[in-house]
């Protein structure tokens, strides 16, 4: 029994290494971790394979049923977690997307007007940290619809995007309130493209009844400004639903962080 448990322990460590190695090479990685940590995960994966193999060859220490069960549970969790919310079932097979790409044209032209691409998390950080936003600047942004009683009362909805710093555990859905006339019926979880302009709120009041989005369990919406929508279009959930903005994003030069889906 002891030898079996120790052999299973070694196999779990070795398996964790293989899983990390596979994940670090797959598109699904972005559903768990910020893609900039791929090299770290890949390096650690090699380490786990080595120590797992060493443990299998020369088991060390006492067997512990609880320990073996915990790692068995981790294996079940990893299998159940799948490829996350990345669109399609080929998350593990696909090659990773370009992680950092500077779009040569950060603008989208619609009906002759130019709109600057910016994801909702970036807009949140820009506005909430008090950065001045030109009132004539048009923005195009894409995100998940979130409604709440508080927002319904003021005739707005929140447009959010899951923002990950390091891993999914620290992800927060961030975004901006949107007001629009003549909207189709919107439901929580709908994905929208919104073209609009920012208007500051004279009397900010925090929205505290948002909850999560399904992609990320915790949300924050900017309470200092909102987006007056000039056009709203429903869209399919993007292939890459998360963004990787840092708080200083609002101050930095314009750049897109997650490839073509990052606005």
């Amino acid at each position, binding site marked *: 029994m002891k030898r079996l448990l120790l052999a299973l*322990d*070694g196999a779990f*460590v070795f398996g964790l290494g293989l899983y990390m190695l596979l994940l670090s090479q797959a598109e699904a990685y972005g*559903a*768990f*971790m910020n893609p900039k*940590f791929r090299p770290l*995960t890949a*390096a*650690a994966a090699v*380490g786990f394979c080595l*120590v*797992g*193999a*060493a*443990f299998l*060859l*020369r*088991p*060390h*220490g*006492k067997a*512990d049923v*609880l*320990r073996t069960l*915990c*790692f068995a*549970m*981790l294996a079940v*969790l*990893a299998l*159940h*977690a*799948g490829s*996350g919310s990345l669109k399609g079932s080929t998350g593990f097979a696909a090659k990773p997307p370009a992680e950092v790409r500077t779009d040569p044209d950060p603008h989208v032209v619609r009906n002759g007007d130019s709109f600057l691409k910016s994801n909702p998390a970036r807009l949140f950080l820009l506005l*909430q*940290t008090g950065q001045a936003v030109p009132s004539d600047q048009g923005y195009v942004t894409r995100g998940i619809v979130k409604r709440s009683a508080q927002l319904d009362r003021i005739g707005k909805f929140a447009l959010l995007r899951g923002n990950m*710093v*390091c*891993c*999914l*555990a*620290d992800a*927060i859905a*961030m975004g901006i309130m949107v007001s629009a006339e003549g909207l189709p019926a919107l439901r929580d979880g709908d994905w929208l493209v919104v073209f609009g302009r920012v208007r500051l709120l004279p009397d900010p009041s*925090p929205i*505290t009844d*948002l*909850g*999560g989005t*399904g992609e990320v*369990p*915790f*949300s*924050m919406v900017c*309470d200092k400004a909102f987006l007056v929508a000039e056009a709203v279009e429903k869209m399919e959930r993007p292939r890459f639903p998360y963004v990787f903005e*840092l*708080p*200083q994003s609002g*101050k930095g030069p314009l750049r897109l962080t997650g490839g073509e889906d990052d606005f």
Partner: protein
Amino acid sequence: MMLQDIQLMARIAVSIVLEAAPFLLLGSLLSAAVERYVDTERIARRLPKGLLGRMAVGLLGGMILPICECGSVPLARRLLEKGVPPLTAITYMLAAPVINPVVLLSTYVAFSGNFKMTLARALVAACGAALTGWLCRGRLFAEFHADSIRPASLPDLKHQHSHGAQRVSADGCNHRMVLNLLSSGASEFLDMGKYLVLGALASAAFKVFLPWQLVQALAGNASLSIAVLMLLAVLLCVCSEADAFVAASFVYVPPAAQLGFMALGAMVDLKLMGMYFSAFPKKIAWPLIIIPVVCVFVLSNLLSLLMR
């Protein structure tokens, strides 16, 4: 409970393990290396005898050896076993994840060059670590230096390690030395890793099923926001390398609450609590949790008065 929630919970738990496991492995391998190849007894004899000196060595060690909180626990346990004074080892264990240059730089960047916040974080964490080390040193000395700690588990580690070392010297075979080192590291990782898995699962469950609306409402109250953010730090298990960016995102709360989140999270969170109970007896694990919580809460409140 919806299937989507369960899948999200699984994904968050796996992501915490993916984030923390490399650092836990590093700490486990360092611990195994210290056990086999470092003559810490000799180093321990050369450490200062005074309390302040021992505290300073722990803090200095934390500054020059960047290691995440997951890695510092097995390493500190091994240092204690090898005769390093408890005050130095515990101060090192709690301070290293915060006061190392990598984390301080990330704090500085996350808060857009706010030097006061960076300094405040280092000060609160260093004070919490030193105070905990100072208050726990008597109990730890009795446990470790009387060689009576966790008779069911640690003596086994010692037993295996010492025999391994003897085999190594007898064989003189490099590849066997490496095999033994890696296997010891794996054993150490497995011992701590079970608590990492349980802590990650608990954290994921809290994250998915916690009524966040209530948390947001409480965080709006200045007097409660520090406690709420400290609670979040415990529940979310965010790595110390990244927590400054998460804290900076909590723009609704006052800086003192952000400070409490950053200072506590690297010393006490769900996964660390499990590791403390794995690495130390209960009568030491509880103070390792309670003292930093009280210390960070008091200091964050005091600093909030200064930061106004």
